């Protein structure tokens, strides 16, 4: 069973959370110069790595906050978690 470390509530069962998706995709700016290709990339293209993956979860049955989680998709090990804007990419080896 996976447990996720919510920055607000502490270590909680992952059944309390709702999975949102890949945290590394950045929405193109509104009204900017972005063309169809950038939107296509944002909407449809995912790397889907086998190994550490940064993703957004929502603590839907807790504080309802969105959090960022670094999780290994092969072992389901949760490597790090933090606020949604934090970049966790350097924490792959730290474990939790």
């Amino acid at each position, binding site marked *: 069973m996976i447990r996720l470390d919510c920055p607000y509530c502490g270590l909680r*069962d992952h059944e309390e959370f709702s999975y*949102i*998706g*890949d945290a590394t995709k950045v929405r193109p700016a509104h009204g900017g110069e972005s063309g169809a290709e950038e939107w296509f990339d944002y909407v449809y*293209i995912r*790397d889907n790595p086998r190994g550490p993956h940064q993703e957004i979860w929502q603590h839907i049955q807790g504080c309802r906050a969105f959090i960022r989680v670094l999780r290994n*998709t092969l*072992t389901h090990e949760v490597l790090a978690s933090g606020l949604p804007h934090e970049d966790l990419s350097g924490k792959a080896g730290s474990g939790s």
Partner: protein
Amino acid sequence: MAEYSAFSLLRHALTGHRDWRRAWRDPEPRKSYDVIIVGAGGHGMASAFYLAKNHNVGRIAVLEKGYLGGGNTGRNTTIVRSNYMLEEDAHFYEKSLQLWEQLSHELNFNVMFSQRGVTNLAHSDSQMDAFARRARSAMRLNGIDAELLDRKQVQREMPYLDFSENARFPIYGGLKQPRGGTARHDAVAWGRARCRPAGRRHHSELRGDWLQTPGNRITAVETTRGDIGCGKVGFAVAGRTGAPCGQARHEASDRKPCAAGLRLGAAEADDRYRGHLRGRAFLCQPVGQGRPGLRRRHRHVNSYAQRGNTPMIEHVMSAGLAMIPSLSRLRVLRHWGGIMDMSMDGSPIIGKSPIDNLYLNCGWCYGGFKATPGSGWVFAHTIANDAPHELNAGLNLERFRRGYLVDERGAGPYPNRH
């Protein structure tokens, strides 16, 4: 290939079943093949079968990293149906269902396909409306059998469901496809593996992870038994599609949530009908095995783990019990989990790839097993002719760039919502 018949069974019974021949070969690979299919699951083996049978391709190899049919071919609901709404899906799955009806005969191997009907239950008025729309304005217009059942009719057919006033999932009615049913999944894998129509087909358990791609063509596949040259390559590796693609970056990415299921020990609970419990779990009773199985839809998380987890087992149990209280007397015999290759619209991708001689068969979401005959049929056509069959023309990879999605559930570009 040894033909199976009542006579051969009797003859081998007299000799104590000691001299049955090995059902399929595992030869050393040649230097090169006209077509290499990566993945010896239901889709890969059906594709190789129809390449040889329908398109007369001579040298075909099927590469498999694990054991035969050990991926989602061995981890699914075994339900076969074609109750789809959108045209791209409906005609494709209907073709597949028609191929299922002939499959045991075609393979000379009993795949135990039993058309005892598949029923989706409605638990609210709006679900009944949706089923009425699906049955009357989609399935029947597409020439597919569909029956709308009211509550009383469901109760007559499946009296073991919870019809009490306090039922957690009240039953309003159901959508039944009488021609739907189940097949024995292992038998499909074995039947395909032993059958070599016309062409000389090799089947080797090989690892085929890396591709040599000078320019925009694949010239060879690197395997544990050396490099094998290839004319064309077809990928049918479901949840692993991202990994062997390597250089061929896969455009509409697949995600891989887990599915989980339980096999329960029981006497015949009901051998006439298969409830397809739309609430939260599926009940299936595979033919000849006598034990009902409970299965649940996938958990919506990216994963390569190919196993379930404990909360899922509880989910399946509680949903099953809420629908069928008598299940509380059963014990769990075994449980299983797997990964699903979710596409961005919930429909499969069968077609050409950005690499000239690479073809993709993936994105099966939760619908792969029932599609395997049709999938092999159109994938073989696509590989042989370098152009899609009319049944998979709409299921191409380019549809995402063009915004022409085949979104049966209307859930939008979110793999975890399909």
